[in-house]
């Protein structure tokens, strides 16, 4: 905007030209053409949040917001893990049991073999890596459909977990570092420092991108759009950290008009920066590295990717490895929140993870979708369970509503594409 490129910009546009107004109207045009992205999911989340906040006075409280985040973190991580394989048009039905098995390995090593927790953690991640390599080998090298390979593991690992944990067994998580993830909060100043680092990083990357485009001599979007976006992120983040800094412990009432002292519960839950960090790193890899680009290419048109010299089998394998490794994180989150690892940990969650990705706007046919879509989808599914729980409705209703939302989300996506004249399957 203020800088002039060394040479005149090419006359074929790049979509970065024009005023802020042009840019915004161009965005709405792509939305009308059926590129809705995460919009339906964001809309759904907002509608549900407004609905629940009217129906239950305890919905919009710091305590419940913190609960919602810890409740959704496991699902969110698993959904993000699944995005890597779903982008290739593949599926990993074993991601849930992988999270369960690796959590079991961790807890059994710590309890029964007195292994230092960091070493046990490394073992759990190594197991995740091995499982991913195993799946990837059978899918990419042997050529078995991923549905079949991972269905086999889904069944087999439930047995493996029984063997590791023992029938009816349950191990408490006694490692304080793991228990803290879901149950402890960041000290308030630390929360603000991390917030500052995140904002500084976002500003730095945005400016770096601009500088690179300017150096290459191509158009940049109006500066006001960049600052507008960053300021919006900064305000939302600040509101969140401030809201989480309010003491959310239940009052113990008053005695003679004086508040009975209690231990404060305040600060951002520890899981939040971890989950945001994973989301950010994953998005960086997918959007800004050759690896990420190749992943989308293989998901979009495998043959084209192969002819372009991309090592398709290696990309396939890597996606399953990333998925299984992230599933380990999901397993640890789950163990931390529940406090125990049982023989059935993780066996139920995988389809919810797929549902979260689809609700968020990730295409099961591959090539379309982003990590943040899965994260938003997971929030939608978690808010349904959270809100209905607050209303005291039976669990059956929760499943019915979640299923309905999934089908609704898929319908909105399909109709918007059909209206725009695109193909239904994508």
């Amino acid at each position, binding site marked *: 905007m203020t800088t002039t490129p060394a040479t005149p910009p*090419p*006359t*074929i*546009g*790049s*979509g*970065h030209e024009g005023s802020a107004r042009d840019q915004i109207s161009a965005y709405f045009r792509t939305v009308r*053409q059926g590129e809705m992205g995460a919009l339906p999911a964001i809309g759904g989340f907002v509608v549900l949040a407004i609905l629940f906040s009217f129906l239950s006075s305890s919905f919009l409280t710091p305590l419940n917001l913190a609960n919602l985040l810890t409740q959704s973190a496991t699902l969110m991580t698993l959904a993000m893990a699944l995005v890597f394989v779903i982008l290739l048009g593949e599926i990993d039905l074993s991601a849930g049991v992988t999270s369960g098995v690796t959590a079991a390995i961790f807890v059994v090593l710590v309890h029964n073999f007195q292994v230092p927790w960091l070493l046990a953690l490394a073992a759990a991640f190594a197991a995740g890596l091995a499982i991913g390599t195993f799946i990837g080998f059978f899918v990419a090298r042997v050529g078995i459909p991923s549905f079949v390979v991972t269905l086999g593991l889904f069944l087999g690992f439930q047995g493996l977990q029984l063997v590791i944990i023992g029938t009816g067994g349950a191990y408490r998580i006694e490692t304080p570092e793991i228990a803290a993830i879901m149950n402890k909060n960041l000290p308030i100043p630390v929360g603000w420092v991390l917030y500052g680092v995140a904002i500084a990083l976002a500003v730095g990357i945005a400016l770096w*991108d601009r500088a*690179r*485009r*300017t*150096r*290459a*001599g*191509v158009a940049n979007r109006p500066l006001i759009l960049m600052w507008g976006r960053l300021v919006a992120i900064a305000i939302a983040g600040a509101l969140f950290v401030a809201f989480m800094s309010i003491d959310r412990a239940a009052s113990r009432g008053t005695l003679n008009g004086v508040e009975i002292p209690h231990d404060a519960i305040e600060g951002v839950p520890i899981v939040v920066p971890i989950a945001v960090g994973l989301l950010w790193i994953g998005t960086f890899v997918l959007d*800004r*590295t*050759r690896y990420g*680009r*190749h992943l*989308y*290419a293989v*998901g*979009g*048109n495998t*043959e*084209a*990717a192969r*002819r*372009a*010299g*991309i090592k398709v089998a290696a990309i396939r394998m890597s996606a399953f490895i990333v998925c299984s490794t992230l599933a380990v994180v999901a397993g640890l989150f789950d163990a931390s929140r529940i406090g125990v690892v049982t023989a059935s940990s993780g066996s139920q969650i995988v389809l919810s993870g797929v549902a979260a990705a689809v609700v968020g706007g990730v295409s099961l046919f591959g*090539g*379309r979708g982003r990590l943040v879509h899965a994260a938003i989808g997971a929030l939608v599914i978690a808010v349904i369970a959270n809100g209905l729980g607050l209303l005291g409705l039976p669990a059956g209703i929760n499943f019915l509503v979640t299923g309905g939302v999934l089908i609704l989300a898929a319908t909105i996506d399909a109709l918007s594409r059909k209206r725009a004249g*695109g193909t239904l399957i*994508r």
Partner: protein
Amino acid sequence: MDVPVIELSGVVKSFGPVDVLKGVNLTAYAGKVTALVGDNGAGKSTLVKGLAGVQPFDAGEVRFAGEPVALHTPREASALGIEVVYQDLALCENLDIVQNMFLGREETAAGTLDEGVMERQASETLQSLSVRTVKSVRQKVSSLSGGQRQTVAIARSVLKKAKLVILDEPTAALGVAQTEQVLALVRRLAESGVAVIIISHNLVDVFKVADYISVLYLGNMVAQLETKDTNNNDVIGYITGVKTYEGSRA
């Protein structure tokens, strides 16, 4: 005449007992469009696959810019500067034009994709081919017409600094206006100094765009003609085997 960019002599390819290419000669010159015509089963696709290194020839000599070379893998062909634009295009619909043009050899800086540099080079390449049908290089390929996709696929080979570009039926699925645009693009591609081999069933297109016409008939190269010295009926005669070749190429 100049040294041809590619010169095949006595090229043979068999699949088991079936001899698909029975000693084929073919030349293509820089800055010229050579049309490869022939009926179904004449061996056109096999010849192209051999040139691309996908299915190496069994025997025969391949000279690239006068030097004898081996074409055993797609990588070898690509390293020499041979690019094939396939009929089914091989583009990723979920990616945009820039991403497709740079697929497999993205520009990076500090380990991350350098979008600005790629965007600029993509624009410049399209402009060098006088492409006017594309509005933005950041359009998704799924939103492009067949002619625009063909344009992107051809521009991709230009971006790779190809010396020989082989186009497999580039106008097969296109309407009249788009066919005109793509043929004009093929001419400009040749004028930029690239040797172009175009495979087509449409003789009207061939006569519009080609400098030379090579006719394959049942695995033999039955005629190599200069377009200005021949006519539609003769070429059809060669393709169907009714006519046999007697003259030699100038």
